[in-house]
């Protein structure tokens, strides 16, 4: 029962609310940077609700079930992952051995769902976007996993997120060490790509392939994708907070501290996305397989050496 509660209230409702808020922060900050006024607080929610009420069109030649189910799969995995992270964040003792693997796995599914959905729509632009997304997933997944390995090593090679949080509460956050800092930088870059934000919004590239995989989505299925992306904007930084910044604690002054850690991460992501043009897919591949992977390997080696 308690798990159902976590799933619905924390995993879905709270994450959705915070994700929509994060998306508003992102849009507002972006707007202010660009001398615009920006949307009102409820705009992300209004967008979703409006889309929900629109007609869902299924293109001729699309594989109907896959087309409609992939946003559901993506959204469900985000909800599951968020519920898992909330459990770990609020009650570190309640995790299970290997939840680190499950979290990383669940956080990959949204990208996969976008790939599958894009291919299912049968649109050439969507296929192009999907193949780009596929290449991008192949590019950032390795450094992301390596970077996520650093806190595991520092916590004594235990693949349990709860223990990672506890270890950080005892020995200081992962990011206070050299290996932790490097890993955090790598992870932020990977998160940028996972969120498909500039400079890694290559799969969606509005001015090239008109939102790529999502080009044929409309109505409620598009709303699900939008909600999924907004929730990811909360879940991924939250994951980083757990891995590198000592998790969250909802008592006393720690509440402020937790919110601050999260907002700083969102701010970094927003700043990166507003100060860069989009790179090409081959450049992104070279970037992730080259310098970023090397950095993450260095971080792992340093972590093993205890630095």
């Amino acid at each position: 029962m308690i798990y159902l509660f976590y799933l619905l209230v924390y995993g879905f409702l709270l994450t959705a609310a915070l994700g929509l808020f994060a998306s508003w922060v992102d849009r507002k900050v972006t707007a202010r940077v660009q001398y615009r006024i920006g949307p009102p607080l409820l705009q992300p929610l209004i967008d979703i609700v409006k889309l929900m009420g629109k007609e869902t069109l299924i293109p001729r030649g699309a594989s109907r079930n896959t087309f409609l189910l992939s946003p559901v799969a993506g959204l469900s995995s985000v909800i599951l992952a968020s519920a898992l992270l909330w459990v770990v964040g609020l009650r570190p003792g309640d995790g299970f051995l290997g939840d680190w693997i499950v979290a990383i796995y669940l956080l990959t599914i949204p990208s996969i769902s976008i790939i599958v959905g894009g291919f299912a729509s049968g649109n050439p632009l969507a296929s192009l976007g999907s193949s780009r997304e596929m290449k991008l997933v192949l590019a950032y997944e390795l450094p992301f996993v390596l970077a996520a390995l650093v806190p595991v090593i520092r916590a004594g090679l235990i693949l349990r997120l709860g223990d990672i949080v506890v270890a950080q509460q005892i020995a200081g956050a992962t990011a206070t060490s050299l290996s932790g800092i490097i890993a955090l930088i790598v992870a932020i870059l990977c998160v940028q790509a996972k969120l498909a934000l500039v400079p890694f919004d290559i799969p969606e590239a509005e001015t090239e392939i008109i939102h790529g995989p999502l080009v044929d989505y409309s109505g409620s299925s598009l709303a699900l994708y939008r909600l999924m992306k907004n929730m990811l904007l909360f879940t991924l930084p939250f994951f980083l907070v757990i891995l590198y910044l000592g998790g969250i604690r909802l008592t006393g002054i720690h509440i402020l501290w937790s919110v601050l850690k999260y907002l700083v991460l969102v701010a970094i992501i927003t700043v990166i996305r507003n100060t860069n043009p989009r790179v090409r897919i081959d450049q992104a591949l070279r970037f992730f397989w080259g310098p970023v992977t090397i950095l993450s390997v260095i971080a792992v080696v340093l972590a093993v050496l205890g630095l």
Partner: protein
Amino acid sequence: MGRTIVPIGPYHPLQEEPEFFSLTVEGERVVDIDVRIGYNHRGIEKLSERKNFDQSTFVIERICGICSTSHPFAYTRAVEDIFPMDVPERAKYIRTIIAEGERIHSHLLWLGLAGHFLGYNTVYMWVWKLREEILDAMEILSGNRNNYAMFKPGGVRRDIKESDIPDVLRKVESIVGTLEMLRDAIMDDPVIHARTKGVGVLTKEKSIEFSALGPTSRASGVARDVRKDSPYAVYDRLDWDMIVTQNGDVFDKVVVRVLEMLESVKIIRACLLNLPGGEIDAKIKNVPPGEGVGHIEAPRGETFHYVRSDGTNRPVRHKVRAPTFMNLPTYKATVVGETISDATIILAAIDPCYCCTERMAVRDVDGARLYDGQDLIRLSQLKTERLRKELGFGS
């Protein structure tokens, strides 16, 4: 690898106007490109032949919202060439000021859009904010932000008030600081370099072969600028430099435009400070029979107008050639072999203007006209009839 066709257009967020590029791609690489335009044809030349010489200026101005001074400028020069006659000094200066103001706002518009195409929306918004200053200055001068309606055969329609000059000067000069900051930012940004350097190279030979014009040719090392080659208005009396770079890639096209804006500021300043007194209009009465050509350097390259008069108050023939008409085919040389991501910025790099270009007719290989106005009406009626049948409305 299998070939796919990726459509860009007729409606695509890349560009504001309807146009259709069909990119044949292998994976991400473009192996062939086909360009179709003609979605925007409005029959402006014909319209112009039905107006008198004065009214035509206003019609011509509406060929393009961005080159809204270049076309009237070339047209009025073509009409004046029929006499031939000279316009008053003050009018020449005012014409130069308006034309250069237009160049700045057009280049800024393009620079912002280029940022947008690269996904760099911050540049897009910043540059367009900067453009507001120029539009404000133009509004002080002409009363309009775009479509200035300043030109008329024989002079200009509206004088510049002495009291406005300091305001205009301040506004125009206020963009210099930001422009220089942008110039340095573009020159230094490694990610912009990665996206634009060596991309879509138009070599000097190809540029000459395609007769590319304006910034497109100047970025390829071809020093071609009507303002220098065949000076008009007061360009030969002012101190300014033609910007020429050698590489012909997208980066150079950006650089040429940014530096040209700084030159334009220089020109406007010199004109405003040395504005002579006197008449602004030669008050021409009747246009004699004959023909005239006018060509000027529009922001995108040379705009060419041909006007023939039979002594009545209307042009009997008016031909317009916009710079994009010459720059458009360079796609064949620049896009093939690049990736789709680059194709979009390369397509945008010539600063295409389709509504300027579109005055075409459909002909078959023997030169016979396939569709004329009557044919199009007939086709449209047939289609309506067919649709009515299909939808079951009866006939």
